[in-house]
């Protein structure tokens, strides 16, 4: 019983599903024709997929972000999901733009990669607006199943196969843990809907003697641990370096950009709506501290490019988790969203640069030497992004870290803010080491200078402009994130908005 109003909210997902199926059939028909070489066709599919994602952005953008509880309350659309959808699609579009040029040329031979990326994007769109434990699990599985295949997609490489297997095993384990948490929550409360769970938690915090024992803490912890696995926070990060190292660079770019947004959005939704008892808070506190420390210490010892990026992203996940420190306060959520958006821009930029450096296999950080002379524009872009990662003042990364620490101090988590500042200062060391390496070191053998293609250059130019010029005009960013946080908080705690159906 889907009525028309409910289907309207699903338009971007429906567009993605339909286009994916069309591209799949098209690809199967064309790729099996023996006369046609495979490589240019990947470009075509990637190009079509890019336009599909752009069209989805338009569809999301023109839709009015009203609060809709659709399809028997399993999806919830509001201003928060609206903007998160746009961020996610922008991130995906950026990644596909990198693939358009490199996919056909280098190593990506199967057009199914694009199809899988589109399918997992649709899964993440559903995940962002999920409002029920069941649809949340299904969307998460749709997304991660695509990722398992993507990680192992380079079959002739041993690293890629190993990465796929490792990702699959640990991902399935974390999904199992997550599902166990869901079943504990359902078993002891009898509801799976986020709003109803929120009402239960609310009545419990009011001291109403409830007939059941409330939401069990072990269920909440299992769900949060499942989340921490997915966002590669520290005690559960062990799969990330190998998986990111083993898979193709383009695939790694997608891994480290898109799911972060979707899972953080979903995590904020769950922790804000269902479990505002703060039973989970100490776990996130610990994960945040651990991620910051490990991201800093381990990135210092890395020699390979992708491992370096992974550990730096683990550190950034730690900084983002600070946003949860004050329970779910408005400022915390807002700073989390700011940090997420800026992280998105920086990561797209970094991967755009790394995709341009060839040969693709086994890149070492030392190979970046003398790029300052070989390709000055590349070197300047790279240095700016690294400064931004480190949090040097006029750049965007500083803004994100500043607001995260500021939010932490406002809610009294001084320890977290202090530790964040210390690790941030230490991390400057290795970000600056890369810049030094690029300008002052002379390696024994010279690399082929990077070749930046047109689409890649566009992506890089846009992201670098965002990173460097953000401090001039920050109000749109703050307004948008404030608006998102408002949308999130308009729903929580009250939870009596009726459904359309």
């Amino acid at each position: 019983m889907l009525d028309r109003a409910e289907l309207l909210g699903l338009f971007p997902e429906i567009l993605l599903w339909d286009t994916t199926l069309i591209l799949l059939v098209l690809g199967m028909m064309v790729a099996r024709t023996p006369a046609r070489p495979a490589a240019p066709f990947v470009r075509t599919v990637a190009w079509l997929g890019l336009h599909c994602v752009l069209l989805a952005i338009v569809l999301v953008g023109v839709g009015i972000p009203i609060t809709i509880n659709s399809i028997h309350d399993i999806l919830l659309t509001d201003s928060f999901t609206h903007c998160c959808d746009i961020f996610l699609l922008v991130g995906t579009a950026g990644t596909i733009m990198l693939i358009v040029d490199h996919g056909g040329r280098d190593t990506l031979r199967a057009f199914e990669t694009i199809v899988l990326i589109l399918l997992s994007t649709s899964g993440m769109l559903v995940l962002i607006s999920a409002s029920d434990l069941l649809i949340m699990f299904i969307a998460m599985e749709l997304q991660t199943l695509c990722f398992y295949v993507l990680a192992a997609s380079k079959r002739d490489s041993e690293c890629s196969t190993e990465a796929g297997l490792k990702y699959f095993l640990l991902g399935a384990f974390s999904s199992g843990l997550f599902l166990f948490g869901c079943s504990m929550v359902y078993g002891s409360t009898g509801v799976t809907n986020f709003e109803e769970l929120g009402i239960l938690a609310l009545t419990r915090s009011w001291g109403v003697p409830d007939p059941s024992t409330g939401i069990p803490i072990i269920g909440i912890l299992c769900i949060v641990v499942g989340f921490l696995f997915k966002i590669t926070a520290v005690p559960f990060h062990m799969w990330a370096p190998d998986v990111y190292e083993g898979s193709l660079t383009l695939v790694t770019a997608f891994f480290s950009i898109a799911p972060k947004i979707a899972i953080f959005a979903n995590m904020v939704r769950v922790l804000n709506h269902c479990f505002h008892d703060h039973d989970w808070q100490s776990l996130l506190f610990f994960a945040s501290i651990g991620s910051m420390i490990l991201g800093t210490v381990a990135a210092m010892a890395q020699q390979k490019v992708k491992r370096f990026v992974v550990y730096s992203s683990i550190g950034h996940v730690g900084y983002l988790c600070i946003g949860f420190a004050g329970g779910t306060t408005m400022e915390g959520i807002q700073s989390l969203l700011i940090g997420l958006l800026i992280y998105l821009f920086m990561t797209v930029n970094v991967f755009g640069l790394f995709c341009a450096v060839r040969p693709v296999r086994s890149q070492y950080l030392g190979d970046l030497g003398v790029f300052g002379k070989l390709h000055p524009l590349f070197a300047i872009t790279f240095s700016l992004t690294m400064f931004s990662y480190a949090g040097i003042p006029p750049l965007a990364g500083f803004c994100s870290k500043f607001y995260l620490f500021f939010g932490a101090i406002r809610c009294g988590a001084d320890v977290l803010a202090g530790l964040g500042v210390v690790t941030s200062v230490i991390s400057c060391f290795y970000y600056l080491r890369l810049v030094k390496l690029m300008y002052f070191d002379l390696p024994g053998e010279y690399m082929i200078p990077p070749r930046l293609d047109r689409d890649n250059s566009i992506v890089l130019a846009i992201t670098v402009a965002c990173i460097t010029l953000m401090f001039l005009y920050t109000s749109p960013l703050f307004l948008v994130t404030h608006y998102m946080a408002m949308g999130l908080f308009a729903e929580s705690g009250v939870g009596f908005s009726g459904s359309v159906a």
Partner: protein
Amino acid sequence: MNNSTILFGVLSSLALVSGGLVVRSGALNPVPAVFLFLLVFVLCSGLLVWLDLDFFAMIFLVVYAGAMVVFFLFVVMMCTFRREGREHEVAPRHTEFVVGLLFLSHLWLVLERSPRPPTPSAYPIGEHCGHVTSATHLDTLGTLLYTHVPLLFIGSGLILLVALLGAIVLTVHTPGD
């Protein structure tokens, strides 16, 4: 203790033992492990019958025992395993004892504080309500799944599509590659 409780105890304890043996013997030789796995699924479907969930019991038999385990068996039999020297790689025994001890203590904790279930009264009120026309599980499930939460169903369909696509991408070798 009536017959039904005894049946439950037998089924669940057999399932527990064979589940433990799957983990234990899988390190040595995978083929018996797969058969024990099959046994676990069959016993679990027996438990589902005990719970009156007949449709799910059949699904367990058809999908898990009939399709999944057969696939496992297929893969395991196709692969050749070198068994020499692998006997020493099995995890030491005391881990199992620790896990078992934890399990038993947990069981004791749960049983100690669990409230007694209320005994059903001899004259239940409204016993015959809702039994005039009875819907089977399949009816109820179909109504819920296809009409009320179709998105879950569509999502599962997409997951199956991804699984199919993944199997093709990962295993089928085209001559061009």
